[in-house]
């Protein structure tokens, strides 16, 4: 359950952004969580709810965008996308894959107001 630490980090970063942008309130925080990030969206949501209690962000929504794994087969150049780890090319069955996306763990936006 290391998502709690991540939730705390998100709150800290957003509060810094609020200060530097002189925002009185933030209604939503957009977060991208990649399928390969090692972090679980449900656990993050749960942790966030616990972590925002008694902070100025207690009414803020967490909007999680789950980023699937994306990659390309080295043999047949087929591009694929999946929510789970792919070990063979869906088109030709080759195991030689280049994974290009899915490591994400970032705050993409905040919504003021």
């Amino acid at each position, binding site marked *: 359950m290391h998502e709690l630490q991540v939730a705390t980090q998100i709150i800290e970063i957003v509060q810094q*952004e609020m200060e530097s942008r002189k925002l009185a309130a933030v209604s939503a925080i957009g977060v991208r969580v990649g399928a390969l990030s090692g972090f679980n969206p449900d656990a993050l949501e749960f942790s966030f709810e616990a972590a925002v209690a008694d902070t100025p962000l207690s009414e803020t929504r967490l909007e999680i965008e789950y980023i699937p794994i994306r990659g390309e087969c080295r043999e047949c150049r087929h591009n694929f996308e999946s929510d789970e780890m792919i*070990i063979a090319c869906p088109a030709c069955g080759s195991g030689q894959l280049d994974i290009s996306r899915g490591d994400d763990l970032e705050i*993409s*936006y905040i919504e*003021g107001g």
Partner: protein
Amino acid sequence: MSGKIEIKKKVLSENDRIASEIREKLSRNKILTLNLVSSPGSGKTSLLERTLKQLGDKFNMAVIAGDVQTENDAERLARAGGKIVRPLLTGGACHLDARMVNRVLNEIDIDRLDILFIENVGNLVCPAGYDLGEDMKVVLISTTEGDDKPLKYPAMFRRSSVLVVNKIDLLGLSNFDPEKVKKNALAVNPEFIIMDVSCRTHEGLDRWYSWLSGAVNNKREAKMAEPKG
């Protein structure tokens, strides 16, 4: 004021910033830095014990031994001849982060060091997300575990550069298939360097020692590749 404001900031950017500082400091001193990760009981401490004993005359090595509780591993490593062994207790946390490592690193004299081993907390999930400033991650799996672990924990196996398959003296006593684990590991990470060893019988450890020596030389000549992930 209302509306979406783009931020695009990595959640772990503070960790990454400290990790970069560590990496810069250690690289300036040409210290090969390895982050050892695995499930509990795969043999991280045993591999380090063997390495400290075998290469103690050849290299100056330091170990930061991470654990949730107890300094047992650090004591074992000191008994194995480790001259610089520092325990790092996380006090419940499931992984090491760069801030913890930096704190301990500041107490170590790194002047004549060749290798720094960071023994992470036994856990294949949480340590994957935290860069510690290492040159690379070395992941261990033992033959008493499932050979599908690379597929179950792709985040960790993808970010590691070396896979050490330990306890090969026990092959045949479980359903562990060494070929299958290699196939699964290479599927997740085609660049893996894979070694079969037994820390108990020493089988295969020569390859580990010579790989390590080569990596130290590469580091001295600053040919080390950028870290993964």
